[in-house]
């Protein structure tokens, strides 16, 4: 059904060329370019750049490009480029972990709820409703107050609301899939429920989950940095974009670069995650509406 509707002008052309694997959507190319640039910077940072927490008061507020600081240095002479490289690593750890953990939980809950129905379905859907009713802001704030504030806690807290979209989307897909005659056939051939869930239903949701996961990554990046910015997330000496920008906040008047550069890199990363989601949605032919 979704494969045939063409809403984008030039969509048919793209569809035909894609079959030959010739052309990638522009958004995918943007995403890949930014992400490989970021990965390269993180690698260089780990191997060749100075320690991001190394203080050098002689280099305090070094302007970008001076004294070996390509992007300048902050109030304590810490190199901004190293800080950004370390923040990329944190951002990658947090976003990938949250997507993997919450994706696994959400897909599992969604398949189980959609396929078995009944009590399991009711319980999962009420949990989903509850999640949607609690503003995430309060969840994160209260969670940070009670559970503490470090990298692991940030990941766990972000997982609490993040599994919900997977569960909803996967459940509604499974509700459709389980009516197929192939499922009945598998059942008649003696497949167990577990095998059907693993071999028939799970593969049917893979594309959806991939697109959802990449769209969610941008959102996670923004939340992680916001929480770290207000000191509810990653704590120094561990670095994150939020930590960097909050450290630079007080010297905004003297040194614009300590705030501007980390923000630009963060915005580019979020842009890359969103473009990756959009591009994969086009390329994998996933129905856009189901994700909204």
């Amino acid at each position, binding site marked *: 059904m979704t494969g045939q509707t063409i809403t984008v002008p030039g969509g048919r052309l793209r569809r035909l060329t894609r079959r030959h694997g010739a052309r990638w959507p522009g958004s995918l190319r943007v995403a890949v370019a930014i992400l490989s640039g970021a990965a390269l910077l993180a690698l260089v940072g780990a191997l060749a750049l100075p320690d991001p927490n190394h203080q050098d008061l002689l280099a305090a507020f070094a302007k970008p490009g001076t004294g070996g600081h390509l992007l300048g240095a902050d109030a304590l002479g810490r190199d901004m480029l190293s800080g950004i490289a370390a923040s990329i690593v944190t951002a990658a750890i947090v976003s990938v972990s949250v997507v993997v953990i919450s994706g696994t939980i959400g897909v599992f809950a969604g398949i189980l709820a959609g396929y078995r129905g009944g009590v399991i379905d009711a319980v999962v859907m009420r949990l989903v409703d509850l999640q949607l*009713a609690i503003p995430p*802001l309060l969840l994160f*704030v209260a969670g940070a107050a009670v559970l503490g504030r470090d990298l692991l806690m940030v990941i766990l807290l972000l997982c609490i609301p993040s599994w919900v979209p997977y569960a909803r989307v996967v459940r509604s897909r499974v509700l459709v899939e389980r009516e197929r005659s192939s499922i009945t056939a598998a059942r008649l051939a003696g497949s167990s429920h577990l095998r059907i869930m693993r071999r028939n239903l799970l593969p049917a949701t893979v594309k959806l989950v991939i697109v959802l996961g990449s769209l969610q990554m941008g959102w996670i990046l923004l939340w992680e940095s916001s929480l770290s910015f*207000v000191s509810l997330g990653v704590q120094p000496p561990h670095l994150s974009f939020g930590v960097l920008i909050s450290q630079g906040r007080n010297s*905004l*008047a003297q040194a*614009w670069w300590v705030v501007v550069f980390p*923000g630009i890199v963060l915005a580019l990363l979020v842009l890359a995650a*969103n473009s990756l989601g959009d591009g994969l949605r086009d390329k994998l032919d996933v129905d856009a509406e189901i994700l909204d």
Partner: protein
Amino acid sequence: MRTFVTFIGSRLLQGVLVVLGAVIFGYLLINGAGDPVAGLATRQLTAAQRAALIHQYGYDIPLVPRFFHYFGGLLRGDFGQSFHSEDSAIGLVMHALPQTGLLVGVAIAVALAVAVPVSIFSVLRRNSRWDTGVRQTLVVMQGIPDFWFALLLVLIFSVQLALLPSIANGTPEAIILPAAALSLPLMATLVRIYRGEMLEVLGADFVAALRARGLGNRDIVVRHAAPNALPALITFVAVQLGWLLGGTLVVETIFGWEGIGSLAITAVQNTDLPVLEALIIVVAIVYVAISLLADLLLFALDPRIRVPSA
């Protein structure tokens, strides 16, 4: 009338359940883990002092009876005393609430005032260079972190140009920068939703009928698609409000705006448990009230939902 009563009745019931859920959830989260007196102690305590403090605040009563005691207090409007100020927990929250309401209200109004005309224009000229430009700008705008944008605004308008205050100082201009910082990401989302919904409406049969009657593109978009896509926008704003409020956490901190966000951060830093609990409950009530209000608005605006089974 009958549909109206059942509709509102079921919504109210759902709302009460959600608030009750938030009360229990907040209570468990805050009382089930952590050290209750960590926020009270200003210095190292001896074991005896600690025990006395725990007893004084009733944290030695088991979880379940304590909940009923707490819940009884809530019904009388008693949310407990803040650990860190002379005020009651609920007093602090109610003091902060209008501040956040004002800020978010202005931000939403600004975002709507920009997003609605931009979306309509974009749909009128759909697939033109202008429309593509709008869509690409939106993709970039959605990636901009609001706290960073807020700092950029401070850098440009307060530090460089010295035009606007960077901190809430009681003057009316002080709201301009925080509201702008909050409304930017919102604007991007609103245009995306409204534009998409209008294009959806344009694909409906009645639009084909209008075209057959000879109506121009402009009339169809402005007089038919725009109003018909409005309910989706209202629903979106109401449902997403909790997520939209997330930005207030950082924006209020940056501009020293004494609203819910700042209060929440202070409460976390001081482990001020009664204030945190009161925050969770009050925000859940506001949240439910707003979605109820949006439902009423939809009911008034959109005759389609008044028809049962439609």
